[in-house]
């Protein structure tokens, strides 16, 4: 049952050329959006390693948002297509691992679409608020380290 006071944490990976610039525009235009989103700037959505998404979930994110240039507009020609392929395959894996579809979202947002950043961030925050936290169940490190030093 979703906690009434639950505030979702969203990690957003934005490409520097389009979506990150759009997020800047959102700020410059004084369009407030949900403070639940933590933005990480990438040079390109094609840099997004699926491990980043899983690591975000592992470390407590309730949702991951990826923002790149519109198809055909990638600064590096085809990075956003690479992102799209990886995310679609990752989505198939996450579905079988019981992670709700709404927790991973990819959006094409150009540098001029400050309002879209606001809308997407707010929408996703609301959706996750309804879903509740992602209840991962990862084991802690072994309780009795034998030797000196930290076990990985």
């Amino acid at each position, binding site marked *: 049952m979703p906690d009434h006071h639950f505030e979702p944490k969203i990690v957003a990976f934005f490409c520097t050329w389009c979506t990150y610039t759009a997020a800047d525009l959102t700020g410059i235009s004084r369009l407030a959006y949900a403070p639940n989103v933590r933005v990480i700037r990438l040079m390109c959505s094609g840099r997004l*390693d*699926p*491990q980043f*998404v*899983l*690591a975000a*979930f*592992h470390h407590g994110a309730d949702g991951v948002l990826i923002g790149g240039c519109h*198809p055909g507009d990638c600064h590096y020609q*085809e990075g956003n*297509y*690479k992102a*799209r*392929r*990886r995310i*679609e*395959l*990752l*989505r*198939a*894996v996450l579905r*079988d*691992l*019981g*992670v709700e579809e709404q927790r991973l979202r990819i959006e094409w947002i150009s540098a001029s679409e400050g309002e879209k950043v606001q809308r997407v961030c707010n929408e996703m925050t609301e959706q996750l608020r309804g879903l*509740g*936290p*992602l*209840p*991962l*169940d*990862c*084991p802690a*490190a*072994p309780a*009795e*380290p*034998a*030797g000196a*030093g930290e*076990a*990985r």
Partner: protein
Amino acid sequence: MTTMTKPKIALYWCASCGGCEEAVVDLGEDLLGVVEMVEIAFWPVALDFKRDDVEALDDGELAAAFINGAVRTSEQEEMARLLRRKAAAVVAFGSCAMHGGIPGLANLYESEDILDTVYRQAPSVGGSEGTLPEQECRVAQGELTLPAFSASVRTLDQVIDVDYYLPGCPPPVGLIASAVTALVEGKLPEKGAVLAPDVALCSECPRAATKPDKLLVRAFRRPHEGLIDPGLCLLAQGLVCLGPATRAGCAAACPGGNMPCTGCMGPTSNVIDHGAKALSAIASVLDADGADEIAARVAEIADPVGTFYRYSLPASLLHRRVRPAARQDKEEVAP
């Protein structure tokens, strides 16, 4: 031989199939050389030593304990902890101990559902009483106990501190031999090392030369769907081969046998989550741009988790299928 005492080693199995034990036997005549160099103090599958014999050892008396298999029951956990105490070095032996292995795919299911399937739903189960194994059971002769069945499969290093890793399903014989030799000669690398080469499988694949510069796959197919060219790069033939994302060390045994790599050697050292890296590698050779086209290609990959996390689900960043929070309260299933 001199009268110098030989280093003692132990071999143990947890949740595994027995293939790792078979790999030790596969040393063949070299096994005699190993027995010359070390004294086997405990090896339940082959020698008649008991748990008491291990408990009688001094702490750290064993030079090494080679433990294969993932950890699912309280008995496996107890034995792992006992061997950890008795051994100077613990080697996670094989894919299951290292990353969870095939038994780790049980993390896609709830333990209650597994017990229900095995003891109630399976067509081969006789009788209709639906009896489940109980941890404690009173009979006329007294109380009987069984090990507890934990909620998830864990890797060995999620239970005890591990010094070295020997990957593979099972580990290749050559790697086992060099690990034992390094142990006896005191030439083991730094703690935490994986005792295998740290490059991708493609580097030793006999088909590597036929891998196109720009690899593009228009459609995926499974090994039984059509003939496989025995010389050509398997990825170029549309087979999901995990070679680009998997560690070398097996001499590309599967591609050599006309089957795609399924990733049993695990990833190279700079990868955290093998499945994520493997799916990234496969996605990047997909020749599709449009959303529908990509979805169609993705649908051609049967069982994505079983394909990309075949040996590593418990070691992955998500560890298991997400369970509704309500079912997580119970740490262990007491049927």
